[in-house]
């Protein structure tokens, strides 16, 4: 929900519980997986308690009809009964856990659909968008940051850094609105509402892909720019720090070409801290696009969560929590493992 949701100004490495062990990757992996379990349980428990203690209820959450019925106390009680909200929280949690254990997340209060179905429909666009934006961001960030770092102090470097700080300071929804007005309306280059065209169902595979990309360009740009603006100075500074390392100077002294030093020694050492940051960025980007999804009428996860919260659609909220926790913890886990693979010091230290 932050501008781009980056609460990770100065990332620190993940705990490395294996610092004093000798057993390598597998042991490390096992330990990491075991450690995510309490975190996972904590997230789910916290969400459950918070949503059930929060004021408001599904009975009062939906916008009513035309005043005939509205929200009345009698209706309210019937709804509470219907949604099984009469039982104490502990009992409800127990019931919920039992059902989830059988992979049944229940039915949405809002439209009666099974939660899993409702979520999956909305999750895949967000997931695909998020991960492609991250890949695109990296493709932009690494060369730009490398160029800036290698020409540190030069005019272009200053322009790049200035542009990054400037871009980061623009709230995404302002940027989004400008994009809609300029690129969407005035230039009419890209559609600015929805994810698919009306005739999407009649298209062939390739056309569908183009259609999806077309519809995701503007919202993607809005997610992309703060990410790039945040990552470029970060990678640039990391790279400068690596460039000052002894081994880089030593590599030059050994007569290696500039190209080889940069690609074989500087870049790999730059990417490791970047990897850690990526682990923090994924959850931020995943959950941080509510405003944009509303603005672009984009059927994503953020909007679903927002709507579910407003409607107090507890089963969907819980399902979303479980899913986002799984994604976030999974990404963190992958990042940690990749980190361990990339850095022998973590693995064997």
């Amino acid at each position, binding site marked *: 929900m932050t501008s781009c949701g980056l609460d990770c100004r100065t990332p620190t490495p993940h705990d490395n519980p294996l610092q004093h062990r000798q057993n390598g990757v597998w042991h490390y992996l096992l330990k990491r997986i075991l450690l995510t379990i309490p975190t996972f349980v904590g997230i789910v428990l916290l969400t459950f308690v918070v949503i059930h203690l929060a004021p408001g209820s599904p009975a009062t959450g939906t*916008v009513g009809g035309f005043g005939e019925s509205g929200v009345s106390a009698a209706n309210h009680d019937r709804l509470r009964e219907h949604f099984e909200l009469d039982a104490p929280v502990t009992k409800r949690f127990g019931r919920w856990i039992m059902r989830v254990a059988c992979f049944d997340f229940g039915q949405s209060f809002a439209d009666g659909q099974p939660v899993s179905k409702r979520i999956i429909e909305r999750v895949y666009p967000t997931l695909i968008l998020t991960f492609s934006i991250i890949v695109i961001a990296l493709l932009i960030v690494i060369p730009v940051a490398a160029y800036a770092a290698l020409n540190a102090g030069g005019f272009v470097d200053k322009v790049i850094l200035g542009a990054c700080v400037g871009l980061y300071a623009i709230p995404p929804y302002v940027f989004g609105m400008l994009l809609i007005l300029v690129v969407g309306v005035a230039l009419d280059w890209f559609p*600015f509402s929805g994810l698919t065209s009306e005739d999407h169902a009649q298209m062939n595979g390739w056309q569908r892909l183009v259609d999806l990309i077309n519809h995701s360009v503007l919202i993607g740009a809005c997610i992309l720019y703060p990410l790039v603006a945040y990552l470029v100075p970060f990678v640039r500074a990391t790279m400068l720090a690596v460039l000052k390392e002894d081994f880089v100077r030593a590599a030059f002294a050994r007569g290696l070409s500039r190209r080889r030093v940069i690609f074989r020694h500087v870049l790999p050492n730059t990417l490791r801290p970047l990897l850690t940051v990526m682990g923090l960025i994924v959850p931020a980007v995943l959950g941080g696009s509510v405003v944009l999804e509303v603005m672009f009428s984009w059927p994503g996860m953020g909007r679903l969560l927002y709507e579910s919260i407003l409607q107090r659609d507890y089963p969907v909220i819980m399902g979303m929590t479980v899913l986002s926790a799984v994604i976030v913890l999974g990404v963190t886990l992958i990042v940690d493992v990749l980190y361990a693979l990339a850095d022998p010091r973590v693995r064997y230290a």
Partner: protein
Amino acid sequence: MCSARKRMKSKLRIMHVVGVLLAVVDSGIGPVSAADHVFEPIPANRSMIDEGATLRCRLRSEPSSFNPVLMFTAIDAQFDYLLWDRPFVLDENLKWSINSAVVESFECSDDHREATLVLKSGLRWQDDTPLTAADIVFSWQRILDDQVLARKARHGTEQVSKCEAVNPQRVRFIFKEALATNQWSVDFPIVPKHIYEPLCTSDPTMQRSDASVRANRQPIGSGPYRVTEWASGERIVLSRWEGYSGPKPAFAKIIFKVIPDNNAALLAFEAGDIDEMSLAPRQFAEDTSGKQFADRGVKIRGKQWTNYYIGWNVAGSKAFLSDTRVRKALGLSVNRPLIRKRVFHGLFSESRGIFPESFTARDANESTSVFDIAGAAKLLDDAGWKVSDDDGWRYRDGGKEKAGFVLNLVAGSQTSPRVADILRADLRKLGVEMTTQTLEWSVFNERNLAHQFDAYLSAWTCGPDPDEARNLFHSNAVENGRNYVGYLNPEVDALFDRGVRETDPAKRAQIYHKIEQLILTDEPYTFLVEAPTLWAFGHRVRGVTLSPRGPLHAFPGVRGWWTPRIPQPIDDELRTGLPHTDAP
């Protein structure tokens, strides 16, 4: 037995004298130009209609269900008349009427205790199963079944004590009481028995099992359209059911696009992505004045039975608000002209009344509002709330209790904080401290249900029958309705109970007029403005009718819309003139 149709006609004459005809004086919007083509009714000559056309509508959010028994939101209601046929419908004046495509005859007994409905023969569900009286009886049973969460459909239907199929074409209704509202009570939705009966054996709630969910999302309806696509969070596509036996609607396809944000929707409208949308007051007054909009469509304004009001917690712990004089003083300090001008761009009309003018025999000058700070100050002084010499706020009889209250607002509304800002400034001058609390919708409702508030700002849309207002004012509604403020007045209760039993429309109007006067005396609510329907239509849309609930929620609604076969050039006068008109 007399003919119900005849009775309804006479009633109509009195109750809907004004109807949707509303002369808006001093609109501040400029000259009214004609956009009559929007209202051009569907021509008899079908060759003029483009029957293969697609209509694109805007949805603010997704519907909860397509099962009419379960439907309850205004969004759901947009689909009701398209997917389902009912024997009775609300016409463009929100008048009860018979759906001639379904009903052969409807007769009501003289004592108002019994009614008989004869269906047309040859009615079919969309899967070609015949629609019979058994379906109606089944639907009635389901609606009254405690396990079915029929939030809206149950309302009124409870008055039908018995519903039986005399033969496949004929249904008999027996009412609990002889009420003026009984005609509404038979207007309940009808679902296919052959689909839901097998489902209900395992899932009596109609929405728990996977099969029920499927049936609710891909319904077998009886109306002219069927659901062909539902892309979650994006769009719902309805296609014309060619087997429909009633009048064939003009559009082959209706695409409902989900666009939550108002600004985004207007941009989509101007880009040609949608053909209609409701406009916010600002959008109507400002954003749509340019050429960009004029090229795409027209905006129209019609009457709507929606009133903005502040509810004062009469029965609450705050002595300040339980005093009628104080509430009257607060009512006097509402600067309606300024609110109208600054918040609603002069588009709304000031309102003091609770019923649409058409319901009551009201004098024209009774509904004029008063803004009188001096008078308010005097009332407060009389009530013992005097300005303190120490800090300038009012206190009761020199005591500690400060004159003030918290006004609850719903988060996300663009207009209510603006109304509150104006009221706050005026109350400050009076020495009354008003603070606002913006609450998220669900919490707002919860506080209201629990009667835990000082005052709240909300809107109320009157139903087609004035008896609906009992929900706001009757003492029964304190626990079972929306009388959140705890207003208790035995005289009002008695009048409501009389009104619902009075079958003579003229006498009925008198009763509701009396109720209105009593309520204005007690001022448990202060009515602020009456909202109009503000709508934008693409140039190609024709056949729109405006009901007091907007163009979508009355019969025939979208069914009657059409578009000419050859796109007619828009004449220059229309282009250059302001593309805005009032309802004809």
